[in-house]
C-alpha cells in the first residue's frame, strides 16, 4: 500500500520520457510537437498529484462544514497557468510548421536539412 501511493510518481517520468523520446527520435515536426505536448502534460500530473490530501475534497469552501479537509489549491493554480503556456507554445509551434511546410514542401527534419545543405 505504501508503494502504491507512489504509483503516480512513477507514471509521471514514464509519460515525460515517452514525450521526450518522441521529440528526439522522430523527424516529423508535428510529431515532435505532439511529443512536446505529452512532455508538458506529464508535469501537470506531477504537480496535481501533490495537491491530494486523504479525505479531502476540491478546494471550494463549503459553508457550514468547518471540519471539511480540502486539497491543496496552490499546485492547481500553477498548473492552470502551465496549461495555458502549453497551448500557447503549441499554437506558435504549429504556425512555424505551417510556414516550413509552405517554404520547403515537407515537414520532415532530415529532408529540410538536406534542402538547406544544397
Amino acid at each position, binding site marked *: 500500500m505504501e508503494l502504491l501511493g507512489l504509483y503516480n510518481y512513477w507514471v509521471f517520468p514514464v509519460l515525460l520520457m515517452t514525450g521526450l523520446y518522441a521529440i528526439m527520435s522522430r523527424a516529423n515536426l508535428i510529431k515532435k510537437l505532439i511529443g512536446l505536448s505529452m512532455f508538458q502534460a506529464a*508535469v501537470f500530473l506531477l504537480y496535481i498529484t501533490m495537491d491530494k490530501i486523504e479525505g479531502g475534497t476540491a478546494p471550494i469552501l463549503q459553508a457550514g462544514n468547518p471540519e471539511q479537509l480540502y486539497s491543496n489549491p496552490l499546485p492547481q493554480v500553477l498548473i492552470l497557468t502551465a496549461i495555458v503556456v502549453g497551448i*500557447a*507554445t503549441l499554437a506558435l509551434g504549429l504556425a*512555424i510548421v505551417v510556414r516550413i511546410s509552405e517554404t520547403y514542401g515537407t515537414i520532415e527534419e532530415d529532408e529540410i536539412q538536406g534542402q538547406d545543405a544544397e
Partner: protein
Amino acid sequence: MSSLATHLPVLQVVVPLLTAPLVFMLRQHGLAWAATTAASLCAFAVAIELSTAARGGATLVYEVGAWPAPYGIELVVDAFSALLLLMVTGASVFALLIARRSLEAEIPEQRLHLFYAAWLLALAGLSGIVVAGDAFNIFVFMEISALATYVLVAGGPRRQALPAVFRYLVMGTIGATFYLIGVGLIYMMTGTLNIADMEMRIRDVSDLRPVLVAGGFITVGLALKAAVFPLHAWLPNAYTYAPNAVTVFIAACSTKVSLYVLLRFDFVVFQGNQAGHVAQFAMFMLPLAIFAIVIASILALREANLKRMLAYSSVAQIGYILFGAGLVSATGLTGGIAHMFNHALAKGALFLAVACLATSLSATAVSDLAGAARRMPFTMAAFVIAGLSLIGIPGTAGFIGKWFIVVAALEHGVAGALLILPVLAGSLIAVLYIWRVVESAYSSPAGDMATRQEAPLPMLATLWFVVLLNVYFGLQPSLPLDLARSAAARLLLP
C-alpha cells in the same frame, strides 16, 4: 514622487508590458517603433535608477498585490539583478536605435507593428525574470520572453530562420519544463515557491533525493536555455538567421538572464545547504566551461559565416562566465558576473557592426568582406575596437572580467594555473578569428567595393557610442565591478 520610486521594481516590467497591446493596435509602423523605443528608454531609466540604489547597498523588495511573501509574489532587486536589468534594457534601447533602418529590408511593413509588440514582450519577459523573487513566477516570465523571442527570430529574412526557430522552440520548451520539474520537486519537499523562503526551508530536507534531483533538473534546464556547451545546439542558427537588430538584442542579454537564474538557484538555494554541493558544482561546471571555451572557439575559427562565427564565440564566452562561477570564490564570481556585462557590450557592438555592414554589403561570409574597410571605414574601425574588447585587450571592457577570472584561478595554486591555460588559449583563438575578419576586410577590394558607401548616420552613431562604452568601461570599470562584487558577496553568503 517618492511614492513612485517604491514601485520601480514592478514598473520595470509593467511599462513594456502595458505598451505591447498599444503597439499591437497602432498599425502605423513608424509610430509603433517610436512607442517601443520610448518604452525601452523609460525601462532603461528605471534600470539606471534601480542600479544606483543597488550600488548604495540597498535591496528593494516589492510585494505585488500587497500580499506578504511567501503567500504572495515578491519582487527583489539587488546588485546582481540591477546589473542584469541594465544589460537587458540597454541592449533593447541600442538595438532599437538601429532597428528602424535595419528592419526595413528584412520585415514586410504591414507586419512591423506585430514585430515591435513581440519585442516589447521579450523585453518585459526578460526584465520579469530578473526581478522575480518567486520560482514559479520566473517560469511564467521565462515563457513570455521565450515565445516573444521565437517570434523575433522567425522574422529573419531567410527561410532557414524557420527551422532554426523551430529547434529553438523545442529545446527552449524542454529547458523550461525541466526547470518546472525541478521547482515542483523543491515545492514538494519544502511547501514554498518563494526563493528566499526556499533557502531557509530547504535546510531540513537538503539531503533527500528529490532535492538532489531537483538541483540536477534546474541546472540542466537552465543550462539548456543559456546554451551552455554541449546544450548549445539551438543557438548558432537562431543568432545567424534572426534579423540583425534582433541578434544585437538577444545576443547581448537573453542567455545571460538564464545564467543569472542558474547562478541564483545554485548559489542561494543549494549552495551551503547541501553537503558537497560546492565540489559537485565545480566538478560539473569547470569541465563544461573549459570544453565550451576551447571547442566553441575552434568552431568559430572554422566558421565561414560571419554571424555564425560570432554566435559560436558567444558559446565560448558563456564558458568564461561559468568558469568564473565554477571556481566558487569571491574573485571568480566577480569576474564571471562582470564578464556578463562586458561581454554584452563587446558582442552587442560586434553585432551592431554586422547590422551596419548589412546596409551596404550583401556578403554574409567572412571571405566575401574583401574591401569592406574601403567601402565602410567607420564601421570597420568600430568592428576592430569591439573585436579587441571581445579578445580582452587591456583598456577595453572585455579585459576586466577575464583578468578577475585569471586571478581567481591563480588563487588555487598550480592546479589553477593549469586550468587557465585553456582560458588563455580561448583568447588566442579569438585573436585569430577576429583577425580573419579584419584581414579580409582590409584586403584590396574587388569590383565596386572601392566606392565609399557608409551605413546611415544614426546607425553609425549608435555603433560608435557602444564601442566607446567598451573603451569607457575598460578604463572606468567601477560600475559593473561594484555591482558584480556585491552580487558575488550575496551569492556566497552562507
